């Protein structure tokens, strides 16, 4: 039962619906690898995804998977974790799912600091709806709904998370699997809400932010002299300065989780025997006499 598994044990029989070459394949395989290396069992993993090409990922990870509505993966995942602390809870979704329609939940999930992991698969476009600008698309990105170029400034999701009080922030690139595996592992092991943003190219629609482009435009922060991911100001600087896109663990902090602050019992709520309550129903009623 608890034998260590391999990444294959986290595969489903369902063929993927992604285009050949899609960055999301890299995210999926890193995730399987990380699960195996962490010694997780599929039955104990709850994997909640949003809607989009990226959101389809939950169908391909052998686990208790939930493919909900657009933008709401985080509240679902938060509650799954609170309902059953024994589960490893991972949420995943696209840049549109997480930073457009889901932006409000994102900020609040960060702030709440429930012990879970959130993977944003950032392809800087809306893949599934055929390549419109997303919140992370570059200004000027030409798409069907912005024929004259995207008029908006790209949103910096990780800077936003930092400002909202994130306790773990990392960024990977789907063509760099090793780093991604390490990052996902660190995120899952982090006590609190951990965000991993993965640059995951959309080979069909995004002709700007391609694999080649990324290779030229990312910088591995962990190898940068003296960068330590424990200084909020430095992290903000790294995330917002002009120049290359920083990869690696960008910020990490230990702070109380929502579970800590609410004093949530170790016993998963899902395991309570609701027929035998721990406290007295009658006493409550008596107050209304």
């Amino acid at each position, binding site marked *: 039962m608890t034998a260590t598994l391999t990444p294959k044990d986290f595969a489903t029989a369902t063929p993927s619906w992604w285009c050949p070459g899609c960055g999301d394949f890299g995210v999926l395989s890193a995730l399987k690898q990380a699960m195996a290396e962490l010694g997780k069992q599929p*039955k104990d993993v709850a994997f909640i995804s949003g*809607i989009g090409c990226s959101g389809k990922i939950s169908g391909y990870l052998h686990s208790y998977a*939930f493919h909900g509505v657009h933008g709401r993966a985080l509240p*679902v995942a938060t*509650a799954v974790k*609170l309902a059953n602390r024994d589960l490893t809870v991972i949420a995943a979704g696209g840049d549109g799912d997480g930073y457009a329609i889901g932006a*409000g939940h994102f900020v609040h999930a960060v702030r709440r600091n429930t012990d879970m992991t959130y993977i944003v698969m950032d392809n800087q476009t809306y893949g599934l709806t055929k390549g419109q600008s997303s919140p992370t698309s570059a200004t000027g990105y030409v798409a069907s709904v912005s024929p004259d170029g995207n008029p908006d400034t790209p949103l910096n999701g990780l800077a936003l998370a930092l400002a909202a009080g994130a306790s773990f922030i990392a960024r990977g690139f789907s063509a760099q699997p090793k780093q991604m595996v390490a990052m996902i592992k660190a995120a899952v092991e982090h006590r609190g809400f951990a965000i991993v943003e993965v640059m995951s190219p959309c080979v069909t629609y995004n002709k700007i932010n391609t694999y080649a482009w990324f290779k030229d435009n990312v910088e591995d922060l962990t190898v940068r002299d003296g960068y330590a991911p424990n200084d909020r100001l430095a992290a903000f600087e790294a995330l917002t300065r002009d120049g290359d896109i920083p990869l690696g663990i960008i910020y990490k902090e230990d702070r109380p989780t929502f579970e800590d602050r609410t004093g949530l019992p170790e016993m998963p709520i899902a395991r309570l025997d609701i027929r035998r309550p721990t406290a007295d129903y009658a006493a409550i*009623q008596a107050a*209304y006499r």
Partner: protein
Amino acid sequence: MILNSVEVMFGGQAGDGSLTTGDLIAGVFKRMGLEVYTYKDFPSRIRGGHTNYVIRASENHDYGMADAVDALVAFDLEAVETHIAEMRPGGFVVFDNTDEAIPDNVRRDDVTWYEIPLAKIAKEMGLELIRNTISLGVLGALVGMDPEIVRHDVRGVYQRKGEKVVDLNMRAIEAGENYVREHFADRPSGYGLTKGIDGDRLIMMGNDAIAYGALVAGCRFMAGYPITPATDILEWMSKQLPAFGGVVVQAEDELAAITMTLGAAFAGVRAMTATSGPGQALMTEAIGLAGVLEIPVVVVECARAGPSTGMPTKTEQSNLNHLIYSGHGEIPRVILAPGTVGESFELTTTAFNLAEKYQLPVFLLTEQALCQSKATLPPFDVDAVQIDRGKLIDSGEVVFGEYKRFAFTDDNVSPRVIPGIPGGMHLAPGSEHNDGGVITENAANRARMMEKRMGKLVSMRDDLPRAVLHGVADADIGIVGYGANTGPIAEAVDRLARAGVLTRFLQLRTLWPFPEDEIKTFFGGAQHVFVVENNYTGQLERLIRAVVGPVDALQSVRKYNGQPFRPIEIIEPIRRIAAVGTPVEVI
């Protein structure tokens, strides 16, 4: 002289403490053995603005408001102006004339006036707030409250503030009583209540009964976002759930509240949320997800007057259509509507069982005039509450590959695993899927899945709470209604019967799937059927029309001004049709 029935209205400005006094009066009446119903009518602001608290005491339980106000305690002229027309001839007004006087055009001759400088007396006693307690003394003396009980209850409320405060309040009661004795000995109110036996009863608000019902039903997760008049439930659960190992989350909005509820339920916890119109509107999309994922959630809708922000603190029954029909695509759902505080508890426990047994969203629909109203009722037998979790597999294991989360079965309900169960791993997708949860757009599978999901509404038929039949089973005149209208209609039925007009009242408790058979049967032999509802468009009536057709028998009794029905508003149209000569006894 009217025996043991009185409707007191406390009117003043929001935030002036009349809610506390209103609650106190309700408690006193209860302890005097009377049956009580309260109604809070307050504005959507925190301080100031006319507010009133109605306490109706009678010998019949589960009645609502009376036909008219018997005793108006008015702290300002606005309260008198706003409500003088609602006074019963023979009733009385206690008016604080410290700063204002009653103009002649406001005064009515058929009510008795007790003008007392309440604020002035209070100030002389050293605390202006104490005028509420003085007025309680006045009212008690005029209406015939048991002075011992008044003192006992006031002590109960102020005890934790220390003996000095209690003392002051005791003196305030006394001051009120004395004032009546000294100034109005010659001016009897015409009212006198007889003390009976309190017995083993509760006095509880609808929302508290819902929350308590949820707790007893095993709900251990609630997510919500504050909204009047549903916030009470969130507050109640916040206080009580942790002791039972559960948790309450104040979400960032209702989109989060409902999706959190889905998440917790997916993970195997009985979970609910509670909201009102605007929040319910925001939950629309996720309710559809619950339907297609076959996740059991309970959603409490405490309706208020819409549309949009509307009148957030007023009552209305205008969300029924939304609960039944909103959302793109078609899912099975259940709507239960309690008619009394007692049923609020009972139907909440039923809601959780139905949700889990049939794996779908269940709405508990109530309204401001019921959910924020208090009533007396017998204690709940919590041991009698059954918990039926249906085909839940929350222990042991299943065989991977054989186990199908969305398996087609005879009753259309599939075995449901929760995360952590070995072998049960699957995808639960909001997209159409096959029995194993794999997304597919295959047309034949699609049709079959629609039939499976919707078929649950048929399988469940015998489990649904049946309507309650009040009155005379074979009367020519029928009435259909639900929710907070239950009280006023029940009273109308009783009083019409006393006037020789026999009627029967079908109090619907399951509103969806619509109880077509009960409606059809009820219409059999009815010459007139009055559909009573608190909305403009006749939402219930349209549902009925789809079953029985636009028959001549149908009569609409509607109200949409934000106020609950008074029984006379139901009696009158029936009396007109029934052409009863004798006036119906007005109590």
